[in-house]
């Protein structure tokens, strides 16, 4: 009766932004990013990628409630960088890593198929 519709898990409603952020007023170089209609798939890879960044002091994500389909990613950085910068760098690196994975995969499929001709 109170269950949300299934499409709520991935359809961002009109007027809601997919990503937004809130700076922390008390801690410098800290911000929380609210990503709508995403869950562990994106949250975990973003968080693990942020951990690799030397300028990131803290990176974590949570789902505030399993029936509210959004994640909050919290990032603290040193003064050498900013949370927004760290966030963008992490996404770009992940994008490049997936590109690399895709070409590696396509090459491997081609090799495997041609090797199997014999």
């Amino acid at each position: 009766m109170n269950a949300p519709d299934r499409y709520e898990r991935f359809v961002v409603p009109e007027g809601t932004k997919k990503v937004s952020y809130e700076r922390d007023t008390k801690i410098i170089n800290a911000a929380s990013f609210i990503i709508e209609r995403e869950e562990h798939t994106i949250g975990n890879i973003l968080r693990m990628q942020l951990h690799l960044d030397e300028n990131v002091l803290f990176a974590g994500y949570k789902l505030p409630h399993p029936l509210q389909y959004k994640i909050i990613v919290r990032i603290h950085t040193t003064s050498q960088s900013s949370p927004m910068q760290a966030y963008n760098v992490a996404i770009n690196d992940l994008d490049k890593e997936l590109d690399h994975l895709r070409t590696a995969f396509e090459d491997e499929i081609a090799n495997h198929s041609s090797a199997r001709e014999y």
Partner: protein
Amino acid sequence: MEERSYQRKPVVKIREMKDDYMKFELRNTDASVANALRRVMIAEVPTVAIDLVEIEVNSSVLNDEFIAHRLGLIPLTSERAMSMRFSRDCDACDGDGQCEYCSVEFHLRAKCVVDQTLDVTSKDLLSSDHTVVPVDFNEIAGDETSEQKGVMIVKLRRGQELRLRAIARKGIGKDHAKWSPAATVTFMYEPEININEDMMARLSLEDKQSIVESSPTKVFDIDPTTQQVVVVDAEAYTYDDEVIKKLESMGKTGLIDIKAKEDSFIFTVETTGAVKASQLVLNAIEILKQKLDAVRLSDDTVEADDQFGELGAHMRGG
């Protein structure tokens, strides 16, 4: 700004590849990426499945919604799915979600006129687009196997009839499991098994046999020539610690050391036939890239103020 890159360079090696099954190794990447790939393969790679059914005549023993449910679960060949639009995003159709860009029409007409039971299967489902048809399960070379008839929908007796029109649309597994192209997708950490040969040589043959037998899966065996315990199939190890516990009970801790390699994964991908196994993985990578792209910060990403009350109080020093 200096160029900072914390990018990893993953490496893939395919072990086995069939149309609907694939086993491959993925190295030099994090567990989060492997898991994200798995999650996307199961829930977010789009497929085409029947979503709307208009029944004209149904005098079978199954009621209308029962048959409609079964029709939805029939896997349809979905190569077109990645280039199709979702019905909700389609502006070409007149709002009822049935146009050539976003949907495929099917119809089924069956009437039993003979005394024997008529089997209505997925082979009786006729498509308006020859690239989107029910999956043909003719993998097995046998002649009279049940797979040749397609997926069973309903059985009709003499006089019973079924006539319907169905619309298939693009969707993802997150919405309903009928749209999931994956049968099973699993990955495991590659195990690294080290046997301390000196300590092993000092054991009796019965002790060695009991060690080999303690594992529920056949990981170890006694080499016939050297009478030593050897690893016969490291990947059969399911990370139950039965061998470790057996060694501890024998007092020989440290004889066998098993570690999981943190950045080496063995994937097993099995599909329903809607998409080829290799194509499923490629689509999953593509979808994951699209999701990351949607989540990027752009110049017009605003700072939320009052929108998220739960963060508001402590963040604003309240």
